[in-house]
């Protein structure tokens, strides 16, 4: 039996720019007495239409449903903590994981929460219907309920407990079996009117406008929780309008870079707002440059290295991310804990070297100063990706590569890159989901069928890499696992199938009227039972 005691993301983000603002959190504010009551208003940049985290694994969904439905396990700065689970263990062969469930928990409709709910959710939703989870749980055979509060997950292939625990906060939300059994799960009415066990009950979803959740008076943590009476999530797609709303006091918190970087920087200098990256340690993303290795020019490692040398990463961090980021070191970000290493090959900004390398690779400048042209697809989400694409084009032009940017919307991008492979280079913003096995490894592992988004559709295939990934995934010993991932990182930085150029957490802007905010590594997705609002 191995019990987990791994400190997941303890390392603080020393390079936080808004340190002053964040330190204010721990300062005098924390000393105040929590107040009951009030309505917290939260900005959502995009509308979340499916409010069921067991069907849609995405931070936007958790941001709302995390208050209503709870996972088995959540994360804290001190490591995993049980929510609906109390403890968990694995057999040595990694084939059976036993989870003990919390007793005395009721669904919002009054029915008790039991192992049946977990078994039903795992077999009927998590395994077949939940994106990402279906890969994770592909070897899940069954879930046995040895008693109403003990669930045993049976796997046909070893499942590292670390991986299981790391995945549960996002991919481990049970749904009430009595409301889902025997229905068309995809079209169940509770997918948009969730029923959970959390501190807040779903009240109303006004499409295109807001979602309201109200206090759950029967919350299992006790009568004093939650502090807030109500939470309202407002959908405001326009970043400038959202910033104005925050400034006007109509919004208390905007997470996940919901306002523009310039406004984030502005709020960080204003009184009354906390700005920072704390609370996103579990949600770090990379800004990437992806190559289509089917293009013989890009298949040449020397060209990829030259491109890397042509990118002034520090400049991009300064201008685009306003300093809230740091250079990437391969597929695992520094928030990746033990699996992360910075002992890898790096490529300093050196345009002269880049030009020389391109000359050597057989791509001299033409009469117009152009060596060759690339068609570049930027991902259509977020301020970073657009600016990063334009910076990429700007930087490439300086070393004699002309980049034509093909602007496209989400389906166009996913189709163009991942199905039709109709691109030379692409850039995106790709999230690390606390464990490499369920996230960034898909970038490097070959063999995913065409059309699978955010997978290795780059025409890059390395038997060595594939083998290393498979081994790391099946490795049960945490230390060996970390070593395996270090090796993968090194190889990825040598071969550069993808440039993981910059890693950045999300940034939030929070009114200082809110207290106890951003106190867990996935705070926006957590239940906010202890959040309170100053009058």
């Amino acid at each position, binding site marked *: 039996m191995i019990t987990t005691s791994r400190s997941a993301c303890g390392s603080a983000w020393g390079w936080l720019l808004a340190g002053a603002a964040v330190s204010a959190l721990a300062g005098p504010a924390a000393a105040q007495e929590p107040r009951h009551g009030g309505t917290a208003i939260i900005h959502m940049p995009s509308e979340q239409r499916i409010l069921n985290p067991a069907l849609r694994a995405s931070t936007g969904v958790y941001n709302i449903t995390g208050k209503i439905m709870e996972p088995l396990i959540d994360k804290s700065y001190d490591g995993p903590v049980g929510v609906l689970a109390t403890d968990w263990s694995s057999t040595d062969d990694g084939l059976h994981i036993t989870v003990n469930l919390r007793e005395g928990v009721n669904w919002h409709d009054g029915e008790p929460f039991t192992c049946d709910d977990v078994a039903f959710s795992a077999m009927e939703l998590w395994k077949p219907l939940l994106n990402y989870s279906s890969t994770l749980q592909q070897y899940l055979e069954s879930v046995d309920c040895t008693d109403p509060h003990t669930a045993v997950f049976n796997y046909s292939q070893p499942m590292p407990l670390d991986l299981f625990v790391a995945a549960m906060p996002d991919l481990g939300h049970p749904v009430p079996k009595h409301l889902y059994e025997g229905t068309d799960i995809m079209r169940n009415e509770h997918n948009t009117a969730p029923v959970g066990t959390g501190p807040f009950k779903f009240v109303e979803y006004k499409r295109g406008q807001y979602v309201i959740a109200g206090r759950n008076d029967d919350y299992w943590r006790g009568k004093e929780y939650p502090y807030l009476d109500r939470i309202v999530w407002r959908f405001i797609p326009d970043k400038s309008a959202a910033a104005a709303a925050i400034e006007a006091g109509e919004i208390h918190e905007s997470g996940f870079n919901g306002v523009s970087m310039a406004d984030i920087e502005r709020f960080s200098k204003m009184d009354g707002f906390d700005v920072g990256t704390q609370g996103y340690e579990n949600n770090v993303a990379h800004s990437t440059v992806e190559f289509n290795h089917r293009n013989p020019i890009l298949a040449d490692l020397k060209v990829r290295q030259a491109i890397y040398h042509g990118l002034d990463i520090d400049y991009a961090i*300064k201008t685009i991310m306003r300093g809230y980021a740091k250079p990437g070191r391969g597929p695992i970000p520094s928030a990746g804990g033990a699996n992360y290493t910075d002992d890898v090959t790096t490529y300093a900004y050196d345009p002269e070297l880049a030009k020389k390398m391109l000359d050597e690779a057989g791509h001299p400048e033409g009469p117009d100063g152009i060596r060759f042209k690339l068609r570049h697809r930027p991902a259509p989400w977020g301020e970073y990706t657009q600016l990063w694409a*334009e910076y990429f084009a*700007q930087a490439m032009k*300086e070393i004699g590569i002309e980049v034509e940017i093909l602007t496209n919307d989400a389906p166009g991008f996913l189709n163009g890159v991942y199905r039709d492979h109709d691109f030379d280079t692409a850039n995106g913003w790709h999230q690390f989901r606390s464990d490499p096995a369920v996230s960034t490894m898909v970038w490097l592992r070959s063999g995913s069928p065409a059309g699978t988004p955010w997978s290795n559709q780059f025409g890059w295939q390395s038997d060595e890499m594939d083998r290393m990934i498979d081994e790391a995934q099946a490795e049960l010993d945490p230390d060996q696992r970390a070593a395996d991932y270090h090796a993968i990182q090194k190889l990825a930085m040598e071969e550069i199938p993808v440039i993981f150029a910059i890693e950045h957490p999300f940034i939030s802007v929070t009114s200082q009227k809110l207290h106890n905010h951003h106190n867990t590594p996935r705070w926006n997705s957590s239940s906010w039972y202890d959040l309170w609002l100053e009058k």
Partner: protein
Amino acid sequence: MTAATTDLPRAEAAPAVALWRRFARNRAALLGLVLFGAVLVMAATAGLIEPTDPLRRAGDPLTKPFTDWAVPLGTDQLGRDILAQLFHGARISLLVGVLATLLSIAIGVVVGALAGFFGGWVDDVLMRVTEAFQTIPNFVLLLALVAILGSSIEYITLAIAIVSWTAPARMVRAEFLSLRSREFVDAARNLGVSNGALIFREILPNALPPVIVYASVIMALSILLESALAFLGLGDPNHASWGNMIGQGRAVLRTDWYCAVIPGIAIVLTVLSFSLLGEGLNDALNPRQKKQ
């Protein structure tokens, strides 16, 4: 009295000169012409301001205007010279405006001319198609077209033309309906002139003045549509366009307002110039008959 009938009136000034005189009477139209001239000059001299690439890094990001004479109007988030982008953007705006206008008017003229000239089922079919295009909200159609075609400047221009041709088509049709029963058309037909020549040589030149005036409206709309697309992040980032500048500048609107406001003013003034020109042309081409 036969002598009197062969007396010819004083030769009139060339039509272009007369047109110019009527146009120049309107001070607002002259202002429009001056503004339009300024935009033309900007487009023409863009290459002098920035001969290589207006999108290159020209200075420190977000340099304020009038602080660094290498970049007189400052730089944007990626350190691109706003002045250079403004001048090159004039090219793009004019290009989008002029090409989309020509294209939409070409489509509109053909559709309107056929419908108006032949009437009957040809008219019915073409007008149903026109109505269909008019019923779909044009901006939504534009978004769909850009989603389909992609955001390169050529396709944006094409898409704008596709959503703008209905008004000129209706206009041309109305003109044709009224002109086709005019006696000079009958006269030409009576001479044995073919339908094609009737449409394009006899009627069309007379149907064009209101369309030419409307062209200024389409030009203005094209520029506004392009900027709205860019605002929604669907512009073509490979070129410096005013829409793109605003689209990106609005992210820094509160801290570095000039990034969005300078191109914003450029758009306002350019669209204004087209509108004023259009009104002036309208007055010049269709002078109000003063009754004696």
